[in-house]
């Protein structure tokens, strides 16, 4: 049984005050050389515009600044620190070779306005990545512009709208399963469509009968995540595509879970018309704070004319360049060519792995999720027994009998040194515990995680109040989320202001 750790004193790295509070008058972190030009009085030059009161600026030394930010950085939890099993987010390791390549001077210092003739390498990266992603997804064309997943979704649905408009009728509705990412309905609404909910069946998949009943000439598209957020592969995806296509509707695939398919099957082959990829998930570019993201959109030929402009083309002289002359294009969705730094990293990842390596990562991701599923079966309730792909969704059904919810278990997991799993999502599972280990984790770290989760399940049985108060080993213990929302304190005030001076 774990005993609550009592600290004799708070370690300095766990008790960092604001830089403002460290300030002492006259201290500074720089030393300028003596003035070698005549001094100018700003008030004379600017008159009343010269600012007299600079407000509260922290006055600190260089080493104080460095220590301040270095200490703060140690409060962070990252995938470089430990396992990050945040389901649906695919927090896989970002290989260092990606960074090495992205930091090559010629790439890191390239300017988007430099002439095409001296940008051939960068253009080639865009072209190679485009071709390889098309190959992986089985689609016909791609744009690398969107800045992240939700942006890719919007671009994809705008492509659907542009295509349907070109046929004379943009249609009215987008169908979305109840297990979808929350961004899907937001995307459909942003693109001007009404959202219609599609219920999952008992296996956690799209119910074909309801789909047939709901698809008509008003439906522009179905937005489907495959594997879905339960980690379940939609086995009748080809039938789903047929039902839609028969009524002239399109199939959009949210590619957030593509890391379960790469090298094994291709959306383009099972009837998907348009999809986005999350380079920051599937293709190992930094994710969550370390971004930016990147959400390329791949599509079938029918949608190609509408892709954002410009696109990379090979010119008659054999060099690469941008084609801006695309009359049916949506226009730009992002300045320049998207988050180019991420394109470099994703290409580095794909090429370092090669086809067999990518297939292996997919297999390992699925194997890890199933290993954890097996390890935790019994200790936690498994609401959907359908085979799991790259992630597994348990529920807090057993633990909630003792008053312990998924959020409490997640907070206790922090004490064991893990980043929490995804809490309360997908919405179709009450009290969801969503775990995605990714292929990055070894058997040993999966075992450690399983053990931690099992220990917590035991703690819930024996000392539920202990779990309810977690985390215990962190700098700050459990926050009062309700109070924070009801009576938020939004800014720090200096002592003088706080006492009402």
């Amino acid at each position, binding site marked *: 049984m774990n005993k609550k750790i009592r600290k004799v004193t708070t370690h300095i790295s766990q008790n960092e005050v604001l830089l403002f509070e460290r300030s002492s008058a006259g201290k500074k972190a720089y030393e300028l050389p003596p003035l070698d030009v005549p001094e100018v009085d700003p008030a004379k030059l600017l008159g009343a515009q010269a600012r007299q009161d600079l407000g509260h600026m922290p006055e600190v030394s260089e080493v104080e600044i460095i220590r301040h930010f270095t200490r703060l950085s140690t409060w962070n939890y990252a995938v470089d620190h430990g396992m990050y099993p945040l389901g649906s987010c695919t927090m896989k390791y970002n290989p260092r070779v990606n960074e090495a390549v992205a930091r090559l001077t010629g790439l890191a210092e390239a300017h988007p306005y430099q002439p095409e003739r001296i940008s051939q390498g960068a253009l080639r990266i865009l072209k190679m990545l485009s071709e390889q992603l098309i190959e992986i997804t089985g689609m016909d064309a791609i744009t690398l512009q969107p800045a992240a997943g939700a942006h890719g979704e919007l671009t994809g649905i705008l492509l659907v709208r542009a295509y349907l408009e070109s046929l004379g009728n943009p249609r009215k509705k987008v169908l979305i399963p109840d297990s979808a990412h929350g961004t899907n309905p937001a995307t459909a609404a942003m693109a001007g469509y009404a959202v219609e909910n599609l219920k999952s069946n008992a296996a956690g998949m799209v119910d074909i009968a309801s789909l047939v009943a709901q698809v008509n000439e008003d439906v522009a598209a179905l937005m489907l995540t495959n594997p879905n957020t339960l980690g379940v592969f939609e086995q009748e995806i080809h039938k789903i595509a047929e039902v839609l296509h028969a009524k002239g509707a399109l199939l959009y695939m949210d590619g957030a879970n593509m890391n379960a398919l790469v090298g094994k099957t291709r959306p383009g082959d099972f009837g998907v018309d348009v999809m986005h990829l999350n380079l920051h998930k599937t293709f190992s570019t930094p994710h969550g704070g370390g971004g930016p993201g990147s959400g390329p959109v791949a599509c079938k030929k029918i949608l190609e004319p509408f892709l954002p402009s410009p696109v990379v083309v090979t010119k008659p002289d054999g060099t690469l360049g941008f084609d801006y002359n695309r009359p049916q294009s949506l226009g730009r969705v992002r300045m320049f060519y998207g988050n180019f730094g991420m394109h470099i990293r994703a290409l580095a990842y794909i090429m370092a792995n090669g086809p067999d390596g990518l297939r292996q990562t997919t297999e390992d991701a699925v194997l890890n999720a199933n290993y954890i599923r097996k390890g935790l079966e019994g200790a936690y309730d498994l609401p959907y027994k359908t085979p799991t792909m790259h992630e597994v969704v348990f529920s807090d059904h057993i633990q909630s009998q003792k008053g312990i919810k998924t959020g409490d278990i997640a907070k206790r997991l922090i004490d064991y040194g893990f980043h929490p799993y995804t809490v309360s999502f997908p919405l179709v599972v009450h009290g969801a515990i969503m775990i995605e280990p990714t292929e990055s984790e070894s058997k040993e770290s999966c075992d450690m995680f399983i053990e931690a989760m099992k220990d917590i399940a035991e703690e819930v049985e024996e000392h539920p109040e202990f779990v309810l108060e977690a985390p215990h080993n962190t700098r700050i213990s459990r926050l009062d989320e*309700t109070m924070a*929302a009801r009576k938020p304190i939004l800014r720090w005030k200096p002592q003088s202001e706080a006492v009402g001076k």
Partner: protein
Amino acid sequence: MAYPADYRYTKEHEWLKVEGNTGTVGITDHAQESLGDIVFVELPKVGTELTAGKTLGTVESVKAVSDIFAPASGTVTEVNEALNTSPEQVNKDAHGAWMVKVKLKDPSEANRLLSAADYEKYVAAEGGH
């Protein structure tokens, strides 16, 4: 928690109490229970026209923001301003913490809603998983 027998209920978990042609609207105890600690309630202004089944406001908890749907059509005549400063009232007494009073267009619309007994059954079936 007992569901008052003189209220009618929606499948979206609002309650409606009809007195003459005045309707009083709130959310059910089951709704507050599943939302968790409520931190903010956004209500329409007096005079707003409500349509049955359409959004009348939102209720925000630590977990989520949810729409409140109008159980019946009509015009808002009174808003429970006290919820602005103490949204926790909804957690404490969902069936007492009313949100808006409405001059109903057609009080008989209420007959289409669930009775307390039917709502209780509905909630029990919904929470099956």
